[in-house]
C-alpha cells in the first residue's frame, strides 16, 4: 500500500513550527525525514542528524589539483623549450606563483560547485514532491516536512494524522 506514495508532506507556517514538528517526528521514531524550506533554517540539520557535508574536502582536492596542474604546466613548458628570457632563471618560482594561485582557486571553486550539485543529485527537474498541492509555497513562505514512504514506520493515514497533530497547516500524500 505504501509503494504508490513517495511520502507524506506537511506544511508549517514558521521555521519554529517546522523544527518542533521535526523534533516530534524524530521522537516518534520516524527516520526517513526531509524538510523543504524557502531558506536554510538554522538547526534543522542537527535535528535531522544529517552527517557533516564533505564539500570542503572536495574543495581541498580541487585546490591541490589546480596548484599541481599549474606548476606542472609551467615547469614542463620551460623544461621542454628552455629559453633565456631577460637573463632570468628558467624556473622562476616567484613568477610561477601567480598562475599557480589563480588555478588553485579556479579548480577549487569549480570543484565545490559541481561537487555540491553532484551530491545533491542536481539537476533533477522532475521530483515527486513537486506534485504536492501546496508545495509551490515551499519556495515562498511555507516550511514543509516530508516523511518518506520508505520509512519503516510509515503508514499513510497514521502518518498524516500524526503530522497534522504536529501542527501542520495542511498535510497531503505525495504520489510516487
Amino acid at each position: 500500500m505504501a509503494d504508490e506514495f513517495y511520502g507524506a508532506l506537511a506544511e508549517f507556517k514558521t521555521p519554529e513550527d517546522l523544527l518542533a514538528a521535526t523534533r516530534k517526528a524524530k521522537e516518534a521514531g520516524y527516520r526517513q525525514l526531509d524538510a523543504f524550506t524557502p531558506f536554510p533554517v538554522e538547526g534543522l540539520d542537527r535535528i535531522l542528524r544529517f552527517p557533516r557535508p564533505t564539500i570542503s574536502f572536495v574543495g581541498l582536492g580541487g585546490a591541490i589539483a589546480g596548484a599541481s596542474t599549474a606548476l606542472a604546466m609551467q615547469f614542463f613548458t620551460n623544461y621542454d623549450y628552455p629559453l633565456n628570457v631577460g637573463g632570468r632563471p628558467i624556473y622562476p618560482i616567484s613568477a610561477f606563483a601567480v598562475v599557480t594561485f589563480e588555478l588553485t582557486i579556479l579548480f577549487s571553486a569549480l570543484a565545490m560547485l559541481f561537487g555540491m550539485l553532484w551530491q545533491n543529485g542536481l539537476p533533477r527537474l522532475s521530483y515527486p514532491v513537486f506534485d504536492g498541492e501546496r508545495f509551490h509555497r515551499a519556495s515562498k513562505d511555507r516550511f514543509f516536512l516530508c516523511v518518506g514512504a520508505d520509512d519503516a514506520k510509515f503508514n499513510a493515514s497514521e502518518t498524516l494524522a500524526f503530522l497534522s497533530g504536529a501542527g501542520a497547516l495542511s498535510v497531503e500524500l505525495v504520489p510516487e
Partner: protein
Amino acid sequence: MSEQFDILPTRQSMGGIADQLTRIPLHFPADRRWMIAMTIASALLLLLMVSVVELFTRGVGIWGINIPVNWAFAIHNYVWWLGIGHAGTLISALLLLTGSEWRNSLNRFAETMTLFAVVCAGIYPILHLGRPWYVYWMFPYPATMGVWPQFRSPLEWDIWAVLTYLTVSLAFWYTGLIPDLAAARDRATRRGWQIFFGITALGWRGSARHWQRWQQAYRLTAGLAVPLVVSVHSEVSLLFAVGQIPGWHSTIFPPYFVLGAAFSGFAVVSIIAVSLRSWFGLKNLVTDDHLNLLGMVLLATGLMTGYGYIFEVFDAVYSGEPHEIQTLVDRFAGAYAWTYWGAVIFNFIPLQALWLRTVRRSGWMLLVISASVVVGMWLERYMILVTSLYRDFLVSSWSHFTPSFWDWSTYFGTIGLFLVPFLIAIRLVPMISIFESKKLLHEENEEQQHG
C-alpha cells in the same frame, strides 16, 4: 552592525517579498523606460561593433597610440572596467563572510554588474593586439611550433587571472541564484517562464539536505573569492609595476590598484542601487540605511585610495631618482596634468560630502558623488598610463598622445556592451536575493519577539 537596527522594515511578509521580486522578471513593470535604455545601449553596442570591424581591418594604427605611448586607451579602459568589476564579488563574498546581512539587498545586482564589467574588460586585451587572430598563442597547447607561452610575463598572468576571476564570479553568482530561480519557477504561470526557470533552477526544491551542502559550498567559494579579487587587481597592477618605466616601477601599486578598484566598483554599485530601487520601487528592500552603509564604504575606500596618491609622491621624492621625480613633475605640471588634477578633484572633493549622514542617506546625492568617482578613476588610469609613458628615460624618445575618434568610439562602445546584457539580465533574474532577504526578515522578526 546590522545587529543594532533593522535594515529591512519588518512590517512586510516573506510572501510579499517573494511576489514583489519575482514579479520583476515575470510581469516586467517598467517597459517603456526599459525600451529607451535598451535602445541607447544597443546603439552604443553597434558603435563598438563598427569600431571593432574597422580595427581588425586596418590595425591598431587607427588609435592614437605611438612609440613611446603604445599602451593607452585599450589598456587604460581594461583596467578601469576590471576595477569596476571588483565590487560585486567583494560585496557578496567579503560581507557574507563578515556576516553583514545588509549585503543581501545588494549582492545580486552587484555580482551581475561584476560579470558584465569583467566581460568589457576582457575584450580589451584581445582588441589591443597587433595580430588578434593569434591570441590563442597565449595558451599552452601542443603546437606544431613546439613553442609555449612565456609564464614570466605579466600579460600571461593576466589572461589566467581574468579568466579565473570571470569563471569564479560566474560560478558564485549562479550558485547564489539557484534558490531564487526556483522561487521564480514556482511563481511562474506561463509555460515558457516555467521551463526557463525550471531548467535554470536545476530542479531546486529547498531540501534541508541540499541547503546544508549549498551553504557550505557557497561560504567556501566566498572564502576563495576574496583573495581572488585582491590577487586579480594586484596582478593587473604588476602589468605596470614589473616594467621599469618611471611612475610604474613601485611597490605601492598592488594595494593602490586594489583599493582603487574597490572604490570605483562601490561607486558603480551605488549608482545601480539608487537607480534600480527608484525604478522598480524597491525602497522597502534597498533602504536608506543601505545607501548610508554604501556611502560609508565608499568614503573609506576613497580615503585609502587617496593614501595611495600621497604615497606615490613620497615614493618618487624619497627615491631621489631623477627620472621618477621628472615623471612626478610631469604629472603635476606636464602636458597631461589635467588628468592628474582631474582625478584628484573628481575622486576626492565631492567624496568629502559623505561625512554627513544626511548626504549618505540621500539617493540622488550618492548618485552624483558616485558618478564623479567613476569619472575620477577613469582619469586616474589615463594618468597612470600616459604620463608615465609619454616621457620616460631618454629625452629623445619623449612624445605625446592624443586619443583618436576610434579610441573614444571603442570606449563608449564597451559601455553598450555592459548595458545591453545587464538590461536583459534584470528582465530575467531576480535582481535582489529573495531567499536571503526573507531569511533576514525572519531573523529580524525573531529579534523583535525576543528582545
